[in-house]
């Protein structure tokens, strides 16, 4: 799983990064709110950890911008003990949890685990990229025609649509979609991408998933839906 860490105190950032990486998370560390917005728009994360007081753009404003772009990645704020107003503003801006400094590392890791477990419940039910719509509760993909998707296909399509335009590696996809399935083999990723590609064609969709087997994939809109 991949985490975006926005914390301007270099020492704390370094310590957090080391501990998260020790727990097998991939971590992108940034040091201000503007960078956080930029990274969130370019990469797919499973969780975000944001400090509130940061230079250039504070954490609350950064999260507001991230949420406004349709990004519902679980987010946790780090706040100073006295800042009750900040905690309220942070939760109202779309944060899922907060932790007051100083905190125990064990608690931070437990909260990250808890957030990523619940990730699915935060996403919107209806997504749209180009003219292609996905209804996650009905598991229906539609454009000119409509077609039903299997549950893993729906989860994969949802992951692509909430991260449209961002490159997603086979590993990231596998860890996100097949996280709870211990028997799964990463080779399944390409097979499901093949299913989605044919189903996007079957509804005459104006989007495509580019990328070769075992590599990085990107979902993008294309002009001209019908490719008879």
């Amino acid at each position, binding site marked *: 799983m991949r985490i975006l860490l926005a914390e301007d105190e270099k020492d704390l950032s370094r310590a957090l990064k080391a501990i998260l990486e020790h727990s097998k998370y991939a971590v992108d560390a940034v040091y201000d709110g503007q960078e956080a917005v930029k990274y969130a728009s370019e990469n797919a994360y499973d969780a975000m950890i944001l400090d509130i007081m940061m230079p250039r753009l504070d954490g609350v404003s950064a999260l507001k911008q991230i949420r406004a772009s349709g990004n519902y990645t679980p987010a946790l704020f780090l706040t100073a003990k006295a800042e009750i107003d900040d905690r309220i503003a942070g939760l109202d801006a779309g944060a899922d949890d907060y932790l007051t400094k100083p905190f125990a590392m064990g608690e931070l890791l437990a909260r990250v685990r808890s957030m990523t477990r619940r990730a699915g419940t935060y996403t919107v039910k209806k997504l749209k990229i180009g003219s292609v719509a996905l209804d996650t509760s009905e598991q*229906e993909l539609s454009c*000119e*025609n*409509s*077609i*039903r*998707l*299997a549950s893993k296909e729906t989860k994969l399509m949802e992951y692509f649509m909430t991260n449209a335009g961002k490159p997603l590696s086979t590993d990231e996809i596998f860890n996100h979609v097949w996280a709870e399935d211990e028997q799964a083999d990463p080779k399944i990723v390409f*097979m499901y991408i*093949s*299913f989605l*590609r*044919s*189903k996007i064609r*079957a509804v*005459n969709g104006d989007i495509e998933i580019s990328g*070769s087997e075992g590599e990085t994939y990107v979902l993008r809109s294309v002009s001209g839906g*019908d490719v*008879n």
Partner: protein
Amino acid sequence: MNGIYGEYKPVLEEIKNDFQRRIEEYTEQEYQKSGIKIYEHLISRVKSEESMSEKCRRKNLPETPDSALMEMHDSIGLRIVCSFIEDIYTNIRYIKSFPDCRIVDEKDYIRHAKPNGYRSYHMILEVQYPYADLCGNNPGKYYVEIQLRTIAMDSWAALEHKLKYKKNVANQELIIAELKRCADEMASCDVSMQTIRDLITGTEE
């Protein structure tokens, strides 16, 4: 002979049998080449004179051979039912290569499904046959309708047909909605089966 087809009834039977034979022939040829049987079953019929008369009446046309053979295009009908979606398009390529046939109309309800979920490929062909037609052309011109679909599409269409011709079905709107959902689920299976076949044979890049 005072049925709606008049003297043409045997000709229609002959054209139907000839088409059936040609489809069986290219299917055998394709099987020798690729090992794939590109249709699962094939049915053909000449529309009964009673249904043809009834259809002309419904459309306010005189019940004459001219209406039945020139205005209507489905006196001769064939249905090709395939295991896989791509097999449908292979059949279409063979049919389009018939030298004595002209495609008058074709509708791809597979790529462009009807709102109720109906999926099939329809073609109307104009074929030449060495028997003078009503306009005096010799060889004469006759129409043949061909429908192509997968087994899943075929069983769906059979059920939908039952609904269409039964009056006062309980919970009709609910049934229509659920039939649509079934059509989309069956289409999903058809597409997945095709994708798996492509992955096995290595044609999926």
